[in-house]
């Protein structure tokens, strides 16, 4: 009786292994940078891994096709990053016209990020004017790129 299902179980296991392999390829693959062997820094870096392990490789001489394009950074807010704000001050900037939030003790003006967020504007609008630490940590905790992006919007600290 049970033997009838063995091929099906094997199929499911093999298919899931394939799925995991594809996941790893797509999660790690785009972040691998191959540097020509004549470069002094021949390393592979996973930019999304919070604890990247550099791996030295040697490759034939490669001609870089194009340099990575720098992302346009939002205009800096004319406020000192050392300023401190209260939650009530942050709450006054709770809409799409002026969106401030606090995450893990830092205060950020993320107005310019609303339309740029890869996960959609709605997720950012939900952070405006409030302490969004738990929402941010649930979604992006330990991820290097979101942390770097968020840091670029810092205007001060929470008082």
């Amino acid at each position, binding site marked *: 009786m049970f033997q009838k299902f063995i091929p099906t179980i094997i*199929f*499911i296991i093999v*298919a899931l292994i394939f*799925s995991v392999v594809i*996941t790893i390829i797509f999660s790690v693959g785009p972040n691998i940078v191959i540097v020509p062997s004549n470069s002094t820094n021949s390393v592979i870096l996973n930019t999304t891994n919070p604890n990247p392990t550099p791996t030295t490789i040697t490759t034939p001489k490669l001609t870089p096709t194009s340099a990575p394009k720098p992302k346009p950074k939002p205009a800096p807010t004319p406020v000192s990053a050392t300023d401190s704000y209260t939650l009530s001050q942050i709450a006054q900037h709770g809409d799409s016209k002026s969106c401030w939030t606090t995450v893990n003790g830092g205060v950020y003006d993320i107005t310019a990020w609303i339309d740029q967020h*890869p*996960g959609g504007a709605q997720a950012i609008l939900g952070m405006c004017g409030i302490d969004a630490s738990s929402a941010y940590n*649930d979604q*992006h905790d330990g991820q290097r790129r979101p942390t770097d992006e968020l840091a670029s919007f810092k205007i001060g600290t929470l008082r």
Partner: protein
Amino acid sequence: MPTKITSKEIAPIILRIAMSLVFLWFGSQQLIHPSNWLSFVPDSVVSFSHLSATILVHFNGAFEIVFGLALLFGFFTRTSALLLGLHLFNITLSLGLSAIAVRDFGLSMATLAIVFYGMDRFCLDYRMS
């Protein structure tokens, strides 16, 4: 083996291929543009799995690609359709009552219909049986 295909035999073939193409398209989009799908990942799943939302979207896409291909070629047709149908039905439940959820409910039921029909004449299962 009969050579003529009756009109009744065409229906499950169309259903199977159409549904597999739906899963293959959505799966490929999740692999290529994961950022467009991050908002669909429930926070509870992220916190429970301890994986980033991007990895979960990638795995979801890979799952749909692998089992979508199996459904397209009719390889373990019933099993593939059952897993894809239940998977989509689970997503439907997590969406609540919305236009997308109603659409996905219909698609999940169409996929589960393949489970009850089983293999058709163009399935690998049929050729191997």
